[in-house]
Every structure is written in structure tokens, then in C-alpha cells.
């Protein structure tokens, strides 16, 4: 009895396929695109948007006549915010659905879960979220920001423009804040900031009791130095944090807070009147004033059928990744992973903030760094925009990483030690 149930279920698992086939008139076998974003569980809100973005891009591409004369077809799976499930679904996408490319993952731990599968089966994935760096896989293109494209310029901005001398690095306790704060710690010390002038705090996911932490931050001002907060607090917890900041009367003039994980989506859960002037650092803001962005927002609203939906940085990264992949496939003339990977290095596609993004040999992109101040309407005023900065897989500010370099073009290695002139390992750390 039990066997029958499980066998039936197994059969269903192996044969069923969720697909949103685009009814288009192109000839030929469709090119399959895997979408590996959580549609349920805690990460659903962030990742569902990216799934919709990929579907929209697929629709747009099909309307343009597909790719290589073949239609595109998205295969959507739901890893349900469950990290082991990411690996399982990735394997399914690559072996059962036989997709040519995957767009997916949000959290670092989900990426680390998928990595071994990608490298084993030689898949190709575009990862669209800002992350902690210290990685470069042959099979992943990182279209989000590396620390030097977000954290370091943001801290520079705080020092230069806001005169911050004392730092509170607040983060949720997981790998991205940990590594980012480590890099920032080394960077700040390198710039002469004393050990005692850096306060670090980690809180659990969804933390809501911020009174003591905010009081601790305010108390940092006791030695007469200007205090700035670098927040890598994730998701929902930001709501309580900003509410407590506002309640404590901490204004952006006194203690500016720069956030790396707070975008338009997160602010929609908040009344931002008391937060005006606090900052966020990204590579894209919805308020970017360019024709490309206006067109994208219009398309997005049309696709999603809701003119109030905001856009955000990972969406832009998904768009850039998709366009870069399309360009590389056209250049290579095939969707096979290795030729596409060879072709994609050097591909240059427009971003939405008025510049272009180039895919670098280390599988990262060039991205401009934007600093935005929070407005009353939950959007950002862009107060600083740099020229595109090349993403650095291995940070220069940690001694073990400074000697490492990733180069998939000439050296064919994601972890190349320039000191010993040898490839440390081909596969990634996971």
C-alpha cells in the first residue's frame, strides 16, 4: 500500500513539469530557462518578484522573436525557502527539465546549496542579489553587487560626505552581514579608525526588540565623534529597527544610518516620515531618472497589472543578467554552457541607471554605486552616483583574500593565488 503511494508520487514527481509556455509562433524546440526562486516560505516575498521579472523578460524576448529563432520557455519551480530543496530543484531543472540556464537564488546559503550541483552538472546560473563576495564559480554569473560595489563606496561616502568617525555595524546574524562587516572592519582599520570606534552587533532574523541596541548606538556619541550606522539588517527586522530609531528621535543629521538591504520593497512596510534622510546604498533605485528605467517600470506595471508595485535593485540585476545571457547566446550561436560562458565575458549591456554593465572575467559585473536618501513617499533621492565600478570577487581588504583573484578567461580559475601564481582550486568553496 505504502509502496504504491510512494511509487505513484515518485512517478508524479519525475514526470510532472510546471511550465509557463509562451504561445509564440517561432519555429524549433523551445529554449528552456529555469527559474529557481522561492514562491513560498519566508523568502517568497522577495523572490516572487524576481520570478515575475524573469517571466516578463521571457515574454519580452519572445515578443521580439525569441532567441536564435527559437522561442523561450520558462520552467518555474518552488524551492520554498528551504535550502536543501534548492539543491534538489536545481538538479531537477538541469537533469529532468534540461534547462539551458537558471535564474535564481536570493540568500547566500541557497546559492551555496546550489553551487555543488551546478558545478557537478556544468549548469549556468545568474545570481541577482548583492552578496558578500569571496567566491567566483565557473558556473555562476554574479549580477548583484560585490562588497566593493556597495559596502566600501557607502562607507567612503559616510566618511567623506557625512563626516562619520565612529561606526556601528549592525547586522542580522548570517553570512552576508558577517563577511561584509569583517571586510568593513578591516577596511576601516586600514583607514586609521581605532578598534574602539567600531561597534558590531548581530541580531536574529525578524528581531523586534531594538530599544537597547538603539540606546547603545546613541551612547556611542559619548566621546564626541560623529556616529554612523551601517546596517545589514535583513528584511522584516528593519521595520522594528527604524520604528525604534524614529521613536528615539535619532535624526539622519545626528546619526545617519546607511542600509545595504533596505530597498523600495522593505520601505513599503513602514511609515517613512521619520526616516527621511537616512540612506541606502544600491546599484539601482526606482527613482533613477533615465528613459530605460521609465520604460522598464512601465513594462513592469503592465506585466504585473498593478501600478503601485515598486521596482528594486535585484530586479535590475535580473534584467541585466537576462540581457547579458541573451547577448552571449547570440554571440556564441548556441545555448551550450561552455561556449556561452566563453562568449559572455566582455559582453556589455545597458543598465537602467544610464550606463552599461560589462561582464568581467571574474563573472562579476561593472556597476555604478548609488547612494539614496529616504524620502517621505518611500522612494529614494539619489544623492551620489559613481562611474561603473568593476566587481571584485575576492576583497582586497582581508589578508587571505587580497592575494586571490578570479579569472575565467585566461587563467580558467576562480581562486587564483597571485602570490604563488597557482590556482588554489577550480571548484568553489561551499
Amino acid at each position, binding site marked *: 500500500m*505504502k509502496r504504491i503511494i*510512494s511509487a505513484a508520487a515518485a512517478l508524479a514527481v*519525475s514526470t510532472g513539469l*510546471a511550465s509557463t509556455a509562451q504561445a509564440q509562433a517561432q519555429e524549433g524546440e523551445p529554449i528552456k530557462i529555469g527559474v529557481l526562486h522561492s514562491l513560498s516560505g519566508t523568502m517568497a516575498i522577495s523572490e516572487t518578484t524576481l520570478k515575475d521579472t524573469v517571466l516578463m523578460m521571457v515574454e519580452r524576448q519572445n515578443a521580439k522573436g525569441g532567441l536564435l529563432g527559437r522561442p523561450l520557455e520558462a520552467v518555474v519551480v518552488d524551492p520554498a525557502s528551504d535550502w536543501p530543496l534548492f*539543491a534538489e530543484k536545481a538538479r531537477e531543472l538541469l537533469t529532468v527539465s534540461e534547462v539551458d540556464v537558471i535564474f535564481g537564488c536570493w540568500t547566500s546559503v541557497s546559492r551555496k546549496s546550489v553551487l*555543488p550541483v551546478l558545478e557537478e552538472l556544468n549548469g549556468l546560473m545568474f545570481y541577482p542579489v548583492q552578496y558578500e563576495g*569571496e567566491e567566483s564559480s565557473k558556473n555562476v554569473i554574479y549580477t548583484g553587487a560585490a562588497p566593493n560595489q556597495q559596502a566600501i563606496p557607502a562607507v567612503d561616502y559616510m566618511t567623506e560626505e557625512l563626516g562619520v568617525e565612529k561606526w556601528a555595524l549592525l547586522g542580522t546574524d548570517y553570512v552576508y552581514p*558577517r563577511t561584509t562587516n569583517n571586510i568593513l572592519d578591516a577596511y576601516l582599520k586600514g583607514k586609521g579608525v581605532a578598534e574602539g570606534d567600531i561597534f558590531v552587533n548581530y541580531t536574529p532574523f525578524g528581531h523586534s526588540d531594538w530599544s537597547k541596541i538603539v540606546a547603545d548606538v546613541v551612547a556611542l556619541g559619548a566621546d564626541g565623534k560623529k556616529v554612523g550606522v551601517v546596517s545589514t539588517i535583513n528584511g522584516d527586522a528593519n521595520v522594528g529597527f527604524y520604528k525604534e530609531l524614529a521613536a528615539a528621535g535619532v535624526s539622519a543629521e545626528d546619526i545617519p544610518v546607511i542600509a545595504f538591504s533596505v530597498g523600495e520593497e522593505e520601505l513599503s512596510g513602514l511609515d517613512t516620515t521619520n526616516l527621511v534622510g537616512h540612506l541606502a546604498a544600491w546599484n539601482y533605485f526606482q527613482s533613477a531618472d533615465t528613459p530605460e528605467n521609465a520604460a522598464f517600470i512601465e513594462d513592469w506595471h503592465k506585466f504585473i497589472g498593478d501600478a503601485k508595485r515598486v521596482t528594486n535593485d535585484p530586479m535590475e540585476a535580473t534584467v541585466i543578467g537576462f540581457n547579458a545571457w541573451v547577448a552571449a547566446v547570440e554571440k556564441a550561436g548556441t545555448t551550450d554552457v561552455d561556449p556561452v560562458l566563453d562568449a559572455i565575458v566582455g559582453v556589455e549591456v545597458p543598465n537602467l541607471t544610464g550606463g552599461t554593465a560589462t561582464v568581467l572575467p571574474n563573472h562579476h559585473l561593472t556597476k555604478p554605486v548609488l547612494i539614496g536618501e529616504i524620502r517621505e513617499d518611500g522612494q529614494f533621492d539619489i544623492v551620489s552616483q559613481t562611474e561603473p565600478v568593476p566587481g571584485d570577487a575576492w576583497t582586497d581588504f582581508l589578508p587571505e583574500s587580497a592575494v586571490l583573484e578570479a579569472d575565467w578567461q585566461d587563467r580558467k580559475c576562480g581562486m587564483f593565488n597571485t602570490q604563488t601564481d597557482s590556482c588554489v582550486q577550480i571548484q568553489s*568553496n561551499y
Partner: protein
Amino acid sequence: MTRQPLILRNPSVLVVLALLAVFTLAVTLLSQAYGSGVVPTSTVKILGKTLCLALAALAMDLVWGYLGILSLGQMAFFALGGYMIGQWLMYARTEAIVAAAMAGNPIPPTAQELREAVANQIFGVVGSSELPLAWAFAHSLTAQLVLVVAVPGLLALAFGWLAFRSRVNGVYLSILTQAMTLALALWLFQNDSGFRGNNGLSGLQNIPGLDGVPQATLSVWFLWASAAALALCYVLAAWLVSGKFGSVIRAIRDDETRVRFLGYPVEGFKLVVFTLAAMITAVAGALYYPQAGIINPAELMPIASIYLAVWVAIGGRGRLYGAMIGAIAVSLLSSWFTGGRAPDLPLPGYTVKWVDWWQVALGLSFVLVTLFAPKGIAGIFDRLAGVLPPRRHGRDLGPGQGALQEKEAKA
């Protein structure tokens, strides 16, 4: 009293073993590595993992269905088993990579340097480069295999000794076990505790020393191992609950105080079963996570353990095969419904997307099962076998209200 052989006392054992053997053989013959390839590797992995979950459910049934302790922290042992084997998998794999990389250096590395490089490789992700004390045995497979059962076993022993000694039971004990797994999860979430925090241990599907073996083959091997472990533990559990020992623990479940008055060392019995179940669960975890590929503290949040209890409840507690059926059925169904494969259900005016509504349906089905089918799926088998509870119209079996309802009396 003459003792019949185990098989005769428990005819279900033979059936289960036979089904398990047939299933394993069938999957092997349909797999990509050893057969026609109809069943893809990813499905083999899912089936292997499901067997491990069934094993965990079996242990849960021992604790809950037979001993009457609703442990809401059982998955802590499962994850601990995974962490213990994961340490070796990670360390040994990284060591091999690092050693290969360092072999290219002009000066051969010292043992110390090798160790540091491995630590840096493993903990570099979370911004540390020292090997924590908890990794002292990570280089040795034997040591970690011992730890797989030793660590959860000792934890269960210590926790159980404290809790049973102070007569914490019933709902209190459930909440306490839940608090235990929550504390452990939060502790593992911290980077400082040396288990890579939220990132957990990953890349576990790559078995060190078996680099040449493709995942297709490895997945079948793990399926075999999981099936074998399940079969062994099933026989062990069936033997345990069928003898006098089984009678005593069922008596403890039904009325602990009376058993104590009869002179049985209740705490000892509870401790033995609780610890044994923890060890079985840990073995299941140690087999599960190399197939899953990654383990992180989210795996032992209280919710996971509650799900385990629910599987057992749906399958039918107090029946070993019931627990297994529940785990297998619900976890496979869950995976099917959340996989976005289930066809949408069009209702007039609203289309039910299962990705959104599966949890609602699952939640309501718990309610329905507890209300209308307290014996779960196994109740069907009981009915077929003619094991029917006497009709007592809701009256208690014993004099006090603490005694169990008639429907559970026979179980």
C-alpha cells in the same frame, strides 16, 4: 507464557521488510546508474531522503506512540546527526582540495599549515580562519561516526535524566523539548559556536574519496543504506515493543503513576527509549543530509519537529508502520504540491493555486485527522485486521480522567 517468535507476533515486520526490499530493487533497476534510467537521480535522492524521514518518524513513534512523550524536539537529534557526519564530509573534502593545491607550493606544507588552510577554507565564508574546538575530530571518519550516535544520545540522556527525574511530563515536557531544540538552533545560528552559523555545512553530497563516483551511483548507494537502516531499525523497534519491555512502556504511556506504584523504574524505561529514539533519529539524519547536500540551523527549528509529530499522527501512532506511512505520504505530497506541479484547481470565481493553498489544506487535514481519525492511516489497517475498539460511549477506561480514551486502549 510461551514466547512466539518475533515474526509471528508482528506479521507486519515481514510485510514491511518485503515491501522495502521490492521498492529498493525496483528503484535500483529503474535508476540511471544501474538500470533503465526511468527514475532520474533527483527522484532517487528524494526517495532516499524520504526513507530517512520515515526512519525518524519510526523513532518518533517509539517515543510518542509507545511511550507517550510528545517530543517536539526530535528533529534536533536528526540535525545533530547530520551535523556530525557533515563535519567529516566537509573537513575531509576540503583537506583533499587544500592538499592538492598546496602540493604545488615550492615548500611542502607543515601539518599546522595544512590545518590552518583547511580552517580558512571552511570558515572563510563566515569570516573566521580558526578551527573551533568542536572540530577536533573532524578529520576522522570513525570518530565522527561515533559522534553521530554519541552526541545526540548523550544530549537525550542528559535532557531526559533531568526532565524525567523532576517528573516533568505531558504538555510541559512537550514545551520543554521544543525549547531545547529552539535553544540548540539559536546556538547553531551563531557564528561563534563554530558551525558556520546560518550557512551551515554544505557540499555534503560530495563524498571525500569517492570523487570518481557520479552522483547517480552515489544516490542509489545512499538509497540502499537508508533502506537498510530503516529495515534494521524497524526490526529493532518491533522487537522492542513486542516483548515485556513493550508492555511496560505502553503501560507508562497509559498511566505512569500506576506503573510506578507497581514498582517499575519508570524513569529508567523512559530514559532508555528516549535515548534510543534519539540515536535512531540521529542515524536517519546522518543518512539524510549527505543526500540533501546542505544542513543549516533552520533544519532544527521547532516547526520541523512539529511536522514530524504531525506525520506520525496522520500515519497513525502506536503502529510502527503507521508512522512510516505518514512520513512518506505527507512529505512526498508536500514536495509534490509545493513543487508547482499540482494542477491548479479552478473554482468558480477563484483558481486555487496549490503553492499558496497547500499549507492551508495540510493544516486543516491535521485538524480533521485528529478529530475524526485519531488512529490515522494505520487505523484503516486495523479495521481490515478486525482490531476494533469496544464501544464504551466515551466513558473512561479507568477511574480517573488521566486515563486514555477507549479508542487508544488497544493500541
